[in-house]
């Protein structure tokens, strides 16, 4: 399919449509998907994205209401506006999906991600790593004489920036949770 530059899910998607995909601008959208917490619901959501060729840049999921059996999936997807509209409509079609919110267009929202960064080093580099961690307000959650594990909460860009700075200072490993997001205000 790629050789033909057919964009699946595009508003004018058809096997007959041989458009140049570069003519369309892709946007990143953060979606909050409230689902029934039942077996297989995450597989349905992920299967939709892989089956229809949509992108997932980040995905987090956890139960948010135990008695009501609700889970919240926060996912960041990328696509042309038409693709994003299709993604939302297709998500809404899944039987155990209760609500789909596009936090990128529905008003201001807070987005946060947690990262754990293991940095190995000695001497000046170790001191520099600790100094930068303080600037970023990262916490030290583990320490040996030759390593730190920093915990940092922030926007994905902040975590990216921190990782970039830590790389020359001995960044050995990192784990990120993906984005969790909520709309601002009441």
């Amino acid at each position, binding site marked *: 399919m790629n050789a*033909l530059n057919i964009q699946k*899910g595009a*508003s*004018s*998607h*058809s*096997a*007959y*449509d*041989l*458009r140049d995909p570069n003519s369309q601008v892709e946007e990143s959208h953060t979606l909050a998907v409230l689902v*029934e917490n039942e*077996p*297989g619901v995450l*597989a*349905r959501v992920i*299967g939709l994205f892989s*089956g229809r060729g949509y992108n997932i840049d980040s995905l987090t999921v956890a139960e948010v209401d135990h008695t009501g059996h609700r889970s919240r999936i926060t996912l960041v997807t990328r696509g042309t506006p*038409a693709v994003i*509209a*299709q993604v939302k*409509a*297709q998500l*809404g*079609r*899944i*039987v*155990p999906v*209760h609500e789909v919110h596009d936090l990128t267009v529905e008003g201001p929202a807070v987005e946060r991600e947690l990262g754990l960064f293991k940095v190995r080093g000695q001497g000046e580099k170790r001191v520099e790593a600790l100094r930068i961690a303080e600037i970023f307000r990262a916490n030290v959650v583990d320490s040996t004489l030759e390593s730190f594990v920093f915990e940092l909460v922030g926007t994905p860009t902040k975590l990216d920036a921190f990782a970039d700075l830590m790389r020359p200072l001995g960044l050995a490993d990192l784990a990120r949770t993906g984005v969790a997001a909520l709309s601002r205000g009441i």
Partner: protein
Amino acid sequence: MSRMMTGARMVVEALRDQGVDTVFGYPGGAVLPIYDELFQQNDITHVLVRHEQGAVHMAEGYARSTGKPGVVLVTSGPGATNAVTGLTDALLDSIPLVVLSGQVPTFMIGTDGFQEADTVGITRPCTKHNWLVKDTDKLAGTIHKAFQVATSGRPGPVLVDIPKDVQFATGTYVGPKQIEPARYQPVRKGDITAITRLVELIEAAERPILYTGGGVINSGPGASQLLRELADATGFPVTSTLMGLGAYPASGKNWLGMLGMHGLYEANLAMHGCDLMINVGARFDDRITGRIADFSPQSIKAHIDIDPSSINKVVHVDIPIVGDVGHVLEDLLKVWKSRGRKVNSAALNQWWQQIEGWKAKNCLGYRNSDTIIKPQYALERLEALTKGRDRYITTEVGQHQMWAAQYLHFDAPNRWMTSGGLGTMGYGLPASIGVQMAHPDALVINVAGDASWLMNMQEMGTAVQFRLPVKQFIMNNERLGMVRQWQQLLHGERYSQSWSDSLPDFVKLAEAFGCKGALVKDPKDLDGAIQQMLDYDGPFILDVLVEKHENCFPMIPSGKPHNEMLLGEAATFGVIESEGAVLV
């Protein structure tokens, strides 16, 4: 009142409470308790199929001809995987099915047990929804929910996977009315502002067209009635997709015939030239649109669809109306009538004159023969000899399917069962059996090609066992005709693997199955042979030897717009450019 019973009994009880009279299935180890319960009751007829794919297509035929959900019962592992093609077919054509599958006992799930397969995993992308029931107390409620999901909103197939220990264990039965109201409640009423805006456009339109699809059929006979009222009251021309044939009668004065790749010239040109396109329950499938960039370039497009994801999926529309076709048409007619039933009559007259000009091309004309039966002629005679009878047609997939859509006429909904979206060869024979089960006294004909028919021919055994007088009208060209046609048009006439070698003798095959068969190859004998098939009281295979190299026209070549149709044999070489050749 709640009652205690085994899971297996619950299945039968729930089916009975859902009004199910027929189940298509095949037994196996993981569904034995349910089969034991079926044995001990008389309300539900079980149709023993010869292959589980056949069971699902039969259920589709049953569902499409009745509007009720079709029910299938299969065992675990291979039973469930054999059902996958049918499930996918039903998903693409929005056919309500409830498939019940057995599963290894809960304590064996995940151990690669005998006949274990991850059925809910395998069928997740090919069902509207599916469930694995691990607790007998939840079994009845889940089955009732399954019926609700399958039949509401945009219909589709669902599957309930039932482990064997859940069938044996005892639990509390709940009836359909005892389950909590479903949270899954798709919108049925359309937005009245959008409907009013569409009415304004209807009043002013100079070159309108109603482009109708399977959604009208799925919405029920009332929707077809409303469509007829709308078309006849406004005088707007009507065309339909393959899925929607019969919603507007072929004998109706506004009927243009089917549109799309093998649609009629007048239908496609009217779509291309219209200024207002009203899509009623269709989905802008690629067989319909041709090249998107040139699809009906001058029209304002309205789209009535119950599924929000159909809106703007392929073609950008100006007036989206999410709702059930029946409800929306009812509101539309109300608003239009209350505003004085206005249409732009002068412009409409001109539009019809233009359409009559296209009709004059007689795009379904073909060169007949005295010596060889032309497939088009075979269908014209079938149409003539069954005219006036309440007739149900199923088809397989290929050239014969397109010719059937062109040359047979449907005046009522639910009379035409064909695999549209998935294009499943082997659909027609089992589907005809499902239709005949639902309508024991009706005339049911499967218009088939030789290659497709062989794909599920084992189901003739089912037809004979249940004394179902299905008529198998095989147009035998000893080819995979549509594949051959494409190879001729765009692969340099290299006919790679597209002929049917070693075909069986269909007459002897009919006898071997215990039914009746006949062969006809002379056009002079055709009427007699068809009449013999129609008069025979039982399943019948008519082997019609037709012209081997006939191509199906009209045709919009791949990658071309509607106004670049091919009308006949002339100039068919080099018409598909390399870009189009990679498409299907």
